């Protein structure tokens, strides 16, 4: 009987069609609407920043992997995702070298040093942004505005709220479509939500983290208004500004740095919501999404240690 040598390996002998590449490239596709919106509102320079950021991230990962004699994995698309996200959380007016520094740090410091994809504790794009903000605060807080928008104040919506300039706030519709100042990819809620819906249909993300996060922010802002100025329109302002939608749907849901279980994800979302509101409402800084997600990334291993699914055959058991 002609069969040659047979392959012997452990079961299961079949796999479904999912792969790391498929997940990452679907995330890239889901971010495209927001990049298009950013380019539309802020000009072609925005697209250039995105491309520079992606190129730097990919080149950095490839170079480091080659130097460390590891397998070069840039085709899985994860560096592309980091590059895109980093560009989306910086002001569209920054000098072109900002995304180069930012993406380099995101990959080299937040990802490669930890051991590459899967081993990083913190969201690489947000680490890159945090490093940029600490190192180049002026460039990172100089905002650009879409044509036709009153740019006299030079502040984002949340900065206006913090500064008390409530009469100058943009309309809810402007906030929803993105005709406002802010980071390159965070302003157009509708473009982001289209991308998020796409990710949910593809079952890459679920509602647990984003809705817990945004819901917590809404509840806390609502409570603060209940005992304060009674202006419940602030809930909508807070939800639509400051990169909350971008952060909740695309950063907090990053698989590597968020909890394994859905229950853990809800805890993560609530925690991030609380910290975001603490920073925005009580802290000196108008925006809190970036730091709240990074802080919850640090808590994720703890969540995974204690939040376990229910064991079959044991009722009510949680840990």
């Amino acid at each position, binding site marked *: 009987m002609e069969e040659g040598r047979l392959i012997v390996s452990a*079961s299961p002998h079949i796999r479904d069609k999912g792969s*790391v590449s498929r997940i990452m490239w679907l995330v890239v596709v889901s971010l495209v609407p927001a990049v298009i919106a950013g380019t539309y509102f802020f000009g072609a320079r925005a697209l250039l920043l995105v491309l520079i950021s992606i190129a730097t991230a990919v080149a950095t990962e490839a170079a480091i992997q080659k130097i460390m004699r590891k397998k070069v994995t840039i085709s899985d698309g994860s560096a592309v995702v980091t590059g895109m996200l980093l560009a989306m959380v910086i002001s569209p007016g920054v000098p072109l070298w900002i995304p180069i520094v930012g993406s380099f740090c995101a990959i080299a410091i937040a990802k490669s040093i930890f051991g590459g994809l899967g081993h990083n504790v913190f969201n690489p794009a947000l680490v890159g942004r945090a490093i940029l903000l600490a190192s180049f605060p002026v460039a990172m807080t100089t905002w650009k505005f879409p044509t036709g928008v009153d740019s006299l104040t030079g502040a984002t919506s949340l900065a206006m709220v913090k500064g008390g300039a409530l009469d100058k706030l943009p309309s809810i519709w402007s906030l929803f479509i993105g005709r406002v100042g802010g980071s390159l990819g965070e302003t157009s809620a509708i473009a982001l939500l289209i991308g998020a819906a796409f990710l949910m249909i593809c079952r890459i993300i679920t509602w647990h983290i984003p809705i817990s996060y945004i819901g917590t922010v809404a509840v806390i802002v609502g409570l603060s208004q209940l005992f304060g100025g009674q202006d419940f329109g602030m809930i909508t302002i807070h939800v639509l500004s400051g990169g909350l939608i971008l952060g909740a749907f695309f950063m907090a849901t990053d698989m590597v740095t968020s909890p394994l279980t859905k229950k853990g994800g809800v805890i993560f979302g609530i925690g991030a919501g609380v910290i975001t509101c603490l920073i925005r409402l009580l802290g000196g800084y108008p925006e809190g999404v970036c730091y709240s997600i990074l802080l919850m990334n640090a808590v994720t291993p703890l969540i995974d240690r204690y939040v376990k699914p229910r064991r079959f055959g044991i009722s009510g058991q949680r840990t």
Partner: protein
Amino acid sequence: MKRFRGGVHPHSEKVSGGKRIENAVLPPKVIIPLQQHIGAPAQPIVEVGAEVKKGQKIGEAGGFVSSMIHASVSGKVTEISDYLYPNPLGRTSLSVVIESGGEDEWSEDVKPVDDVESLGNQRILDIVREAGIVGMGGATFPTNVKLSIPEGKEIDTIILNGVECEPYMTPDHRIMVEEPEKIVDGLKFIMKITNVSRGYIGIEMNKPDAIQAMQEATKDEPNIQVSPLKVKYPQGWENMLIKAALDREVPPGALPLEVGVVVCNVGTAAAISDAVRLGQPLIERAVSVTGPGITEPKNLRVRIGTPFSDLIEQCGGLKGKTGKVIAGGPMMGFAMFDVNVPVVKGTTNILIFSDKDAEIGESRSCIKCGRCVDVCPVGLMPTMIASLSAKGRFEDTEAYFPLDCKECGCCAYVCPAKIPLVQLIQFAKADIMARQRAARAASK
């Protein structure tokens, strides 16, 4: 219709589902392992050179949890030595090799009892034991032991497992379509032995003809209900079946007895009927030969001990470049390194994959996507157990309950990083069980 948590949906690929069971060609030589069941190996009671007849006992059970072994063909015993049998570790078993003389006559010992209706429960159990019947869904637990309910345990339901949730395999499907009355007859014997008045037959909904045949066969049996079940792997694992049929959960490490249930495979029930009514011991079984790598998939009635290679030949031979020959299904079956390995009582399916079908791809680091946690039907966190196991930290895995793992394969099936999760969990389980055994031995 109840559901269970997790599970996956591989393509059914039940290509052979519509094909009648054919008798396999009588094999010129059979290799009958004395260990093809859970428990102690049987002891040979014939010698090399002896002439044996089909159905003659050739192996005596080696203890309470053991099974009788019978000649599946008539002929001469030419060898009693170690041979490979289907198992994941490549182990061998002392086996009786019989060269067939071709006459194929039943032994004189094989005769039905005179009055079946007057048989007492213990007598029926003895017949089941003498016939060497073991769980034919693949678990091969000695059936007479399973049906000997210990003192103090109350059971109220017998469930027959006609789920057959693994892709490709179809022997249970065909037995249900072709011999439904025999299955129901066996179920009634089981219910009689265990003093149970309620029976269920669980069948996945991708087998509408089997559901219809079994419903027809039970239409005059008010105590027996056919339960069509949603198609989801691993619905056929007995704990999932009990959950779906009765909404009861068997606690970890416990038997279905604890929730008042005993589960048997439909093939086992049919074998019980043959043993009681015809006096026939377990010497043959339905086996499907399937997969994209076989020329003509078929369902065959095969004598125990027939080499896989004989059956592959009868199905037109291998197609193209063969990659894997799997005993069982694609989710939990064992890959064989030798096609001359014999069919045993627990062999449900021979699955042939080409080298392309067998490609899994390289594994990479876990990306913590959590899909393995989502699909685990037992509620474990496979990636946590596997990553600790990969570092040799087996004791640390105990916080994640690796012994609950049934090795169903759902986790590895969905892992986008292609990590061999089941294998890593098996390492942890083996280490923990070895330490438990050592501790038990030390404390004696």
